[in-house]
């Protein structure tokens, strides 16, 4: 039952990523050139509602549908990992035009070359795991 709810959320997410065009390489290119409001509208409105929702959950101590306590933990403060990791991610996001969510959506939509991007992303993840202890965090 729980698995089915995750599957349905995923299907919904995939449809939204595709229909919003957030999964389109062109939209990402256009966003980084500041030539349309579209992507900023998507991220901005999602964020505004996300802030309201998250603060409501935290302040009211809302429980999950299974009655468990919801704990939204803070991220550990540092600078190097977020700044360097962020820039590297951004370079890839601009080039491949897809972040991890849309990668799955594009695969389902039949754009098979995205498999190369997904394979690259797995290699990148593996490389991070191998180098983790030698990188500034």
């Amino acid at each position, binding site marked *: 039952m729980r*698995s089915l*709810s*995750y*599957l349905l*959320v995923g299907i*919904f997410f*995939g*449809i*939204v990523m*595709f*229909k*919003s065009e957030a*999964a*389109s390489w062109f939209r990402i*290119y256009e966003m*980084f050139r500041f*030539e349309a409001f*579209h992507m900023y*509208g*998507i*991220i901005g409105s999602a964020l505004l*509602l*996300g802030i309201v929702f998250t603060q409501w959950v935290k302040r009211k101590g809302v429980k999950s*549908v299974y009655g468990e306590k919801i704990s*939204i933990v*803070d991220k550990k403060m540092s600078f190097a990992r*977020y700044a360097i*990791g*962020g820039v*590297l*991610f*951004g*370079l*890839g996001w*601009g*080039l*491949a*035009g897809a*972040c*991890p969510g849309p990668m*799955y*959506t594009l695969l*389902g*939509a*039949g*754009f098979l*070359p995205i498999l*190369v*991007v997904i*394979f*690259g*992303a*797995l290699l*990148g*993840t593996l*490389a*991070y*795991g191998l180098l*983790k202890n030698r*990188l500034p965090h």
Partner: protein
Amino acid sequence: MDKILQPWPWYVSGPLIALIMAILILLGKRFGMSSNLRTICAIGGAGKVADFFRFDWKAQRWNLIVAIGAVLGGYIAINFLSNDAAVTISQDSIEALKELGITDGGSAYMPALLFGEGVFSSTKTILLLLVGGFLVGFGARYAGGCTSGHAISGLSNLQLPSLIAVIGFFAGGLLMVHFIFPLIF
């Protein structure tokens, strides 16, 4: 129905993304898609070469199911919920792309130069996609999250680390599109 078959405007799409994050939180989970890459590495046996992949990945199975759903969602969206998948980007972007040799801006969902049929016979394109993916995977884990984990979930929780990461995302994207694209295309 016609409204559904058309591209969805930002003021519908953005709130729906917030709704997806809200549903996952209410299910006791979190909205963050790049964690799946680590899980897949762990399932593939990467724990043998790095501690980073020695964790209870079975507890992350729910997120893999979300990812499988996202694949199905992409299939459903393009086959049953779209008349025409062409993305109407701005004229300025279309012109700028033409100068790079990408001529299908405004008339396709993805550029044929990078995602078309002929890609698998071009070593250069394969390499570009591989490098792009590598940076996404490496950067996401280094930064501890991607667009969903930092730009949506983290910023919604008013996290300064997420703000640093998102500024980094944009710095990297701007660098790629404005300075590196003219060199590689």
